[in-house]
């Protein structure tokens, strides 16, 4: 019994975040200036699209949907490229995502409890 448990710990240690090999894994390269600028242009374009949308007079439901889409895209682009989550160790993303997911879930439930989305 005890034996097997120790094995479990060994394994957890090796796969877990204490992995010695991973500790010396080479730092993935940050993007180049060119790539940053490319992302910057996409962001600017998306923002322009958002502003245009808000003047375009499309139906409210569609407008909100599209705006949410561009918002999430912009958010993701900045987080993944400018904040390097795409290139960095996945553990940073995990911590950040837990916070983000928690915020999204909890506050959505709160708004639901107030019946904000009922109309």
């Amino acid at each position, binding site marked *: 019994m005890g034996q097997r448990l120790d094995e479990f*710990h060994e394994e*957890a*240690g*090796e796969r*877990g*975040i204490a992995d010695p090999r991973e500790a010396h894994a080479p730092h993935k390269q940050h993007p180049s200036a060119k790539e940053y600028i490319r992302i910057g242009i996409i962001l600017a374009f998306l923002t322009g699209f958002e502003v245009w949308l808000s003047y375009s007079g499309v139906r409210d439901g569609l407008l909100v949907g599209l705006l949410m889409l561009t918002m999430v895209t912009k958010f993701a682009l900045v987080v993944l490229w400018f904040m390097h989550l795409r290139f960095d160790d996945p553990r940073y993303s995990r911590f950040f995502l837990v916070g983000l997911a928690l915020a999204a879930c*909890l506050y959505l439930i709160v708004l639901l*409890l107030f019946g904000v989305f009922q109309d």
Partner: protein
Amino acid sequence: MASVSLPGSGGWLRRPTATTGAWSWLTTVDHKKIGIMYGVAGFLFFLIGGLEALLIRAQLAGPDGTVLNADQYNQLFTMHGVTMVFLFVMPMGAAFFNYLIPLMIGARDVAFPRLNAFSFWAFSAGALFLYSSWFLGGAPNGGWFGYAPNSTTDPTIGMSFYALGLLITGVASTVGAVNLAVTVINLRAPGMSLFRTPVFVWMGLVVQFLLIFSLPIITVALFQMLFDRRWDTAFFDPTRGGDPVLWQHMFWLFGHPEVYILILPAFGIFSEVLPVFSRKPLFGYQFVVFSGIAIGFIGFGVWAHHMFAVGLGPVANTAFGVSTAIIAVPTGIKIFNWMGTMYGGDIRFRSAMLFTVGGVVMFVIGGLSGVTHAVVPSDYHQTDTYYIVAHFHYVIFGGGVFAFFSGLFYWWPKVFARMLNERLGIIQFWVMAIGFNITFGPMHILGLQGMIRREYTYPEGLGLTFWNQIATLGSLLIALSVLIFIVNVIWTRRTPKGLENEDPWDARTLEWTTSCPPPAYNFEETPVVSSLDEFWHRKYAVDKEGRTIRVPAGAASASHDDGHGAGHGIHLPSPSFWPLIAAIGLPIIAYGALWSWPLLAAGALVTLIGVYGWALEPSVAE
């Protein structure tokens, strides 16, 4: 940020060097000293909060009590709750985590030693700020839960102190939580995988994450309360369409994770003490760990069980009733594993063990009454009655405070190189256990007999007198037991320092491999860890017949050092007074927010100076 080669970087930025005396405490960045200061501060506030409780009990000792008037009573019960939760249990948890986590994971200090000092000073500043309200227009009087709009419109200044004071201690806790979380994740000794850290460390990690994710919520709520009070915003003002129920959601979104922040340190202590005094490894280690994580997660999804009577509707009440019931499952897993640990053990009922077993027994009572609240239709009756008061004192006092005393008895020799008196400890335990049950047991009955919470008096005709008298009597017994502990501490201080046996309990974890008290650098050599319960495995081995036998002496104590003359060449962070200065600015900002913009700006300047001094000072003393 560090300076590489700055000529003459001494000057006014030179780092202090004192290692003894008052100055050394003010500038220390040593996690052990900071842990002790957290402990002392927490215990002082326990006495103050207890004194407030005794006044509450005096007022309620009979019908139509005249010890206090309504106004005084409201301030006292509010400050009692706030003090006990934010100024006693939280810093006490921080004390244990600060002192023990680095030792348990084989680290020299926490990840950010100066930030750690800042946490402590900010906490102290916030606590003193809160208590200064007694002299500056009245203490908070809207309950620890501060329900708007009563709290936002009360004409006295008390609840502004509440908002600002908790904001300051909140900053302290957030910073401290990030620090400790990084410490556990990043500073473990070689071989110390997460699944080889003691359960206490795990519970510490979960608590830090709960803090990181729940404090921002109350921060916003407190700002909103402050803005409503000071600058007439409309967040919770029903006359302008604001909905006071928003405050309740925000408060309990934080408040329920908060109660697990209060209890998980206790679970950690239980999980360390039980194996040692049963001389068995913790039963189902990974289940205890995972259930702790599960409690942390589920704890975020139950907050509205404090709001069953608010009228959220049957769907919400069903959902939150169910989620609340679910949380009993991981908690039960813990209880059963602790029982499994004791089962078949060689149980030694020293004071530490008594407090732990007593604590588990009391906690289960509180947990079971918690489950009865989850039965929503009966909670419609119980909510806001003394039945709830009984519930949470059983879990917080019965679980949390008993655990703290257990931890104090257990780790006292580690920290102070003196043993607390066992006989007094055992007497204290029984007086406290009996007093505790006489105080809070009757409150179940009182609640069901219709005694509401937060009432400064009750008339004769309600038939509540008898049990209230008993409860008051019990509170005196608790006070007596606390006095016995104080006597024990004073008594112990007069015994000579030094332990015959530096491993008095035959312990299992890494903190006992170093000397008592540990040297400033904790470990002469960074320990290399090869198993859970590392220290035990260094002392004991399994022979061919499967019996556990002691490894010949010498092998076990190999890593001990006497703390003298050793430790040269170990780089330790130097003391610094900037964290203290940065922290002092915070209450000045808060007073400014109450009374004057220039004062606020001055406080901000002090904090800014502290931060810049901090960033610019050289990384070591010359």
